[in-house]
């Protein structure tokens, strides 16, 4: 297999590595789905996948086509109604990591999947919360995966669907939001984390051959860089094989 990789493949592999050591991940729709399945098939075979559709301990035989695909049910540890899933798993505090996508995410990690523009009269109507609002509130850690662009990274989102660190600093803690909030944002150009004090996003890792200028050009505010900016490790041959042969042979997510 060729060792060349696409930026999406790098992003997916880097995101999956964030799940190392996690026990239970709540899997969001879209990119998070391939990321969590890659983690389970590579370095984290014991990772328990939870789908809001009502599944704990999924071992999908194929990449689920949606987050309610029958393949997440067959062979799972437990399949239940959504009432139990939301109350006894998520609200109970059993989920280590929630993995979300984002149409817009701002400098404090607040996520918008509701509207671009005004709520009552939107320029673009997005799908809405799904389970993201409560995942963002209740999971201990939140990881976000989305492609970097000025449109997706405005200084302030038009609508907070899923709260991140709100206005930054201790805003989230002051409101008694239970979970720890966003921890990392994995993009196709870099990885961003949140400053301990201000809770503002910082670039902590650049993907190989990506410059600071490229990153800044795709973010809607003057982005800060960590004191030490790492270079994101490239995907391993095994990761690429899993993505290309098992998870996304059509390349819908990864080309």
């Amino acid at each position, binding site marked *: 297999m060729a060792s060349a990789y696409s930026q999406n493949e790098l992003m997916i592999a880097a995101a999956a590595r964030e799940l190392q050591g996690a026990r239970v991940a709540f899997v969001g729709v879209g990119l998070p789905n391939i990321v969590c399945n890659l983690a389970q098939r590579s370095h984290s075979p014991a990772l328990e996948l939870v789908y809001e559709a009502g599944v704990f301990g999924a071992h999908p035989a194929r990449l689920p086509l949606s987050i309610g695909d029958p393949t997440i049910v067959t062979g799972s540890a437990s399949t*239940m109604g959504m009432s139990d899933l939301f109350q006894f798993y998520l609200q109970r505090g059993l989920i280590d990591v929630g993995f979300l996508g984002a149409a817009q995410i701002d400098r404090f990690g607040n996520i918008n999947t509701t509207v671009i523009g005004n709520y009552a009269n939107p320029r673009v109507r997005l799908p809405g919360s799904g389970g993201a609002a409560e995942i963002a509130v209740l999971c201990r850690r939140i990881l976000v995966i989305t492609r970097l662009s000025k449109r997706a990274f405005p200084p302030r989102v038009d609508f907070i669907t899923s709260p991140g660190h709100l206005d930054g600093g201790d805003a989230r803690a002051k409101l008694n939001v239970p979970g720890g909030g966003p921890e990392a944002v994995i993009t196709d150009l870099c990885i961003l984390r949140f400053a301990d004090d201000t809770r503002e996003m910082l670039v902590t890792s650049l993907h190989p051959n990506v410059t600071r200028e490229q990153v800044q050009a795709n973010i809607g505010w003057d982005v800060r860089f960590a004191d030490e900016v790492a270079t994101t490790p490239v995907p391993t041959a095994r990761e690429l094989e899993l993505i290309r042969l098992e998870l996304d042979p059509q390349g819908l997510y990864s080309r």
Partner: protein
Amino acid sequence: MPQVTTLHHAIRDLVHDGDTVAIEGFTHLICFAAAHEIIRQRKRDLTLCRLTPDMIYDQMIAAGVCKKLVFSYAGNPGVGSLQAFRRAVEKGEPRPLELDEYSHFGLVARYIAGAARLPFYPLNSYTGSDLPKVNPNLRQIQSPFGDDKIHVVPPLNPDVAILHAQRADENGNTQIWGLAGVQKEAAFASKRVIVVVEELVAASVIRADPNRTLIPGLIVDAVVVEPWGAHPSYVQGAYDRDNAFYVEWDTISRETATLNAWLDEWVYGLADRAAYVQKMRDRLEQLRPGDAFAAPINYGEYK
């Protein structure tokens, strides 16, 4: 006692213009057969409730059936946007669409409150989200047992719920396996219930495994048998999701003209679900899964 009847009769008699209707099923067991019959009978001014409006309500919105949407995620799962939904919200076509919007957990909680006849249901969500700013049904109250505050939502009690399932007996006792979504809660929450099943079975089959009965006949008004009635969504153990169709819908629905042509061909132009299944036959047969049987368990005979 429920009637075992046709979808034509069930929709004609139990769904009225202006009703609040929930066709539920979370990615699984989505009763497209009922949606098409509602479109075909040109019902109007419906308030449609569903966690995920999905293609099914996209079609109903495009057909002009829907006045208001109660929902929590309006996307084409795994594909992208719902085009008819967006045209209705962004441009008011073919008619303006009122929105009553939640997160999944919030709407699940509304169904639980409705099913349990509670005046509200508490959930730990929404703190810091803008959703409560645009929906007065998301309120925060104080616990009487300490300092905790908690959000609450009001009950949802549709006039009619339409629920697809694997099987029922003629008394309406209905069994589901795989993802149950909110089928049970939506059924108990609603004033009238239509159950659409892949298979009608003897009461003895249901009673041989009573733990799988999620909807009792007691609350069911009509039982309809429609094999493949959930296509292009899926039924655990019976058929797979027709993913290609979900992708095709993105193209079909981009223009009003192509969408209407599709409705003409596949809904208005067909007499009933049997005609749809006949026309779709070759495609359907490819959706059969392999077998994965649950081992039988023993309830024991106690005389």
